[in-house]
């Protein structure tokens, strides 16, 4: 019974929180650009904008290009979206408050998050459109280079905690991790952003040069799925960073789940802030950042974590 309730709650969170992040993005981005953003839908400051968008998407015709590889084209949005839902189930929001408590939760989350990218590669190839194909290739190149620093950074947290369980990592968390694991957190967050193809790492969907990358041919609900996958990805990345680096539910006064949510949304704000502030990186700059900066930093952080761990254990 408890499992059913927990999974239902995860599904609700999966459907609501990404929309909340999307609405925050609408409003924050607007105000950062001296605009107001949506003001009409729903009455009060356009709170129902994304619901209205969803209704609009649902009404649209489901178009499949004639030359496209039909089955893969139709399957791709699902492949992009479902992994994030699955990852959400293993993220703890409080002590013992997790839908599925895996002893290898960290590895599970990283492994499943990587699958989402296959969705966008499939979309890029199956659309039979050169811009989509370019976007798909860029997605693949980006995933291959950023997966490594991300896993290395995550390994640093696991080493520091001495466990791969997400709940266990939060329990082992101490305040000095904020300094000790800062490098790993930076690498993890940046690599995560790149893996989600969020600006400034949105070379695969660079709308000014390749239209909308892998999603060029999509419309209606399937396009909405890709959008939802992007925001669900932000949610998952922020939740993982919260759990690994910000001590998850730990915090004074407020209830546990509240602290988790506050931290997740603070990180989501940073994701949006970075998107508004920085221009898109060129493809070679992207690769350079991954291999010249992130990989060495994460390796140095691993060494630091190992040394500190051994010294303090003596």
């Amino acid at each position, binding site marked *: 019974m408890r499992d059913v309730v927990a999974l239902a709650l995860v599904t609700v969170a999966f459907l609501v929180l990404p929309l909340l992040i999307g609405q925050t993005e609408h409003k924050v981005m607007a105000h950062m650009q001296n605009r107001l953003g949506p003001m009409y839908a729903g009455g009060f400051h356009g709170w129902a904008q994304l619901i209205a968008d969803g209704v609009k998407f649902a009404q649209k015709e489901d178009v499949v290009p004639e030359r496209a*590889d039909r089955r893969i084209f139709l399957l791709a949005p699902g492949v992009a979206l479902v992994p994030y839902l699955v990852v959400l189930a293993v993220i703890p929001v409080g002590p013992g408050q997790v839908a599925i408590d*895996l002893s*290898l939760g960290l*590895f599970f989350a*990283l492994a499943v998050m*990587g699958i989402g990218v296959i969705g966008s590669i499939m979309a890029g*190839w199956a659309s039979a459109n050169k811009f989509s194909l370019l976007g798909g290739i860029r997605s*693949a190149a980006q995933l291959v280079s950023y997966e490594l620093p991300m896993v290395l950074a995550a390994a640093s947290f696991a080493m520091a905690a001495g466990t791969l369980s997400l709940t266990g990592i939060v329990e082992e968390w101490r305040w000095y991790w904020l300094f000790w694991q800062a490098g790993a957190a930076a690498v993890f967050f940046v690599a995560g952003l790149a893996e989600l193809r969020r600006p400034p790492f949105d070379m695969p969907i660079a709308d000014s040069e390749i239209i909308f990358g892998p999603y060029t041919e999509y419309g209606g609900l399937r396009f909405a799925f890709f959008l939802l996958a992007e925001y669900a990805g932000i949610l998952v990345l922020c939740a993982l960073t919260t759990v690994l680096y910000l001590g998850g539910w730990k915090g004074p006064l407020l209830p546990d789940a509240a602290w988790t949510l506050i931290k997740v949304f603070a990180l989501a704000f940073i994701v949006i802030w970075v998107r508004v502030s920085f221009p898109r990186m060129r493809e070679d700059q992207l690769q350079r950042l991954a291999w010249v900066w992130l990989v060495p930093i994460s390796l140095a952080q691993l060494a630091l974590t190992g040394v500190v761990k051994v010294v303090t254990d003596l």
Partner: protein
Amino acid sequence: MTAAEIVFTALGVVALGAGVCTVTTKQLVHAALWLVVSFGAVAGMYLVLTAEFVAWVQVLIYVGAIVVLLLFGIMLTRAPVGPSEGLNSRNRFAALLVAGSTAVVLVTLLWRGFRDARIELEPGGGSGDALGAAIFRQWVLPFEVLSVLLLAALVGAIVLSKSRADRGSRTPKEG
């Protein structure tokens, strides 16, 4: 048959079927995607055998990285939508023979080696702790030798790409 055995067999059938599809499909990208299904089914089999860690590593490395790299390579070279001719090798019967005989050898080997031996699966036997202890206590020497092998491969790859870059190919300058 227990539930675990049924699931295991089903996953095995899926893995095998996906594997057959991988080699028989006429479309290059479909082959790579069937490979994803096959890898996923194998990961599921590891899970049934309580080897959690290996299962997630299988997903992370094979599905998340290797297949993406494969797809990248296929799309970069040629990726026609629809069947491409010339995928059928003329050596298919030789390949079938090699594959079949390898399978026969392996199955006989396992059959003769383990025949009636049953391994009791205990939960947690394949967890991170158990696997870490096994690799870094008992099997640390083979592990290190393997890492030297990988290092050699890495150095080889760098040497190969470097020697080509020196022959005057243009690479984008730092931006």
